[in-house]
């Protein structure tokens, strides 16, 4: 019933699910042609993405955060241990700098205090105007594990991975993300037809991340700012 499905071309129906991601285009556009760049990818290792970014003279650092966090013992994932956890999972060399960050949908799978600690840790390694690509789901559920986003070209991504089973979606709003990503501010926010909200954050236009001595970087994990409810 073509009329019921929006009169889509059958050939179009056969295409793999994908995203037109203008934020990616803008992020890549921020990389100066000809210069060496360092890109931090918080997602899993994908050969296509490494190839693509290497073609842009990028050194690509893969963090594979979801997998790394999921194999950690429960004790090390406690809020009070989250600073030490990221010190271990994402060691930064002295003077290490990143020119762009690809967070994909990884933040949907992390606690707010973990995102705060992570971004507080990364902020000093990001010069002003460093772009960060974030995809946040607005649906009620998300796949149990993050999808893999394969870069097809500067503004198109292929989404891969199992969408079943699912888990509740944290439904991070823009203010939520802005609070978690102290030191970064939103430059671009677009709701895609897939239900994903794409964000492009940039470093240096928000407040600096506060860090008390001995405390994990970023916001207090006990701060009761995150609220959820039916929308």
């Amino acid at each position, binding site marked *: 019933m073509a009329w019921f499905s929006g009169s889509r071309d059958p050939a179009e129906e056969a*295409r793999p699910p994908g995203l037109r991601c203008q934020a990616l285009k803008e992020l*890549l556009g921020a*990389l100066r042609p000809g210069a060496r760049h360092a890109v931090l990818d918080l997602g899993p290792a994908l*050969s296509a993405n490494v190839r693509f970014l290497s*073609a842009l003279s990028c050194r690509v650092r*893969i963090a*594979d955060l979801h997998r790394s966090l999921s194999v950690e013992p429960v004790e090390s994932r406690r809020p009070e241990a989250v600073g030490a956890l990221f010190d271990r999972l994402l060691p930064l060399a002295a003077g290490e700098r990143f020119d762009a960050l690809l967070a994909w949908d990884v933040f949907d799978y992390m606690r707010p205090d973990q995102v705060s600690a992570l971004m507080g840790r990364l902020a000093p390694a990001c010069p002003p105007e460093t772009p960060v690509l974030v995809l946040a789901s607005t649906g009620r559920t998300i796949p149990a594990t993050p999808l893999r986003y394969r870069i097809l070209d500067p503004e198109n991504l*292929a989404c891969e991975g199992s969408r079943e089973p699912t888990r509740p979606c944290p439904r991070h709003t823009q203010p939520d993300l802005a609070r978690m990503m102290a030191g970064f501010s939103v430059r671009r926010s677009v709701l895609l037809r897939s239900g994903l909200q794409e964000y492009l954050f940039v470093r240096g236009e928000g407040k600096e991340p506060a860090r008390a001595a001995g405390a994990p970087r970023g916001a207090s994990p006990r701060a009761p700012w995150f609220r959820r409810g039916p929308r």
Partner: protein
Amino acid sequence: MWNKREDEPVRPPSGTQGTLPPASGSERREAAGIGPSITITGDVTGDEDLTILGRVEGKIDLPKHSVTIGQGGRVKADIHAKAVSVAGEVHGNLVASEQIVIRKTATMLGNLTAPRVGLEDGCSFRGSVEMETPPPKGRVAPASPQAGGGATAASPAVAAPKPESAPRS
């Protein structure tokens, strides 16, 4: 099975997933092997290809040859070789003059430096990838995919990935 010669040279055990072809040279050699029950602590150097199914801690330096870490292999060492294939577990930095391949069964923690790097989907990898791709003579690799191409892992001067389809957002 039939006509098997008793004096046939020992080959690396089957199941060494990710075995690389022997490094090219005037003389074809069998790869040396470190078996599953062997543990080596210290530096490993030599003049032939190496397959590791056991444990090695230290440093591996075979700049003219291939190093293969099979599925059961566990290496805690920096590796410098012509080509490296990892199907087991490696903690260390890999530098190869030709290529590095991380198989889907691999657990790799360290930095990779080679003109060509392959990461199979499903591999567990944390670290950085640096592809040193000097432009070949007579061909200039554009700096940006938007500009029409650039060096890739598979080929030093191949156009950037083209859209396989026009995805819907």
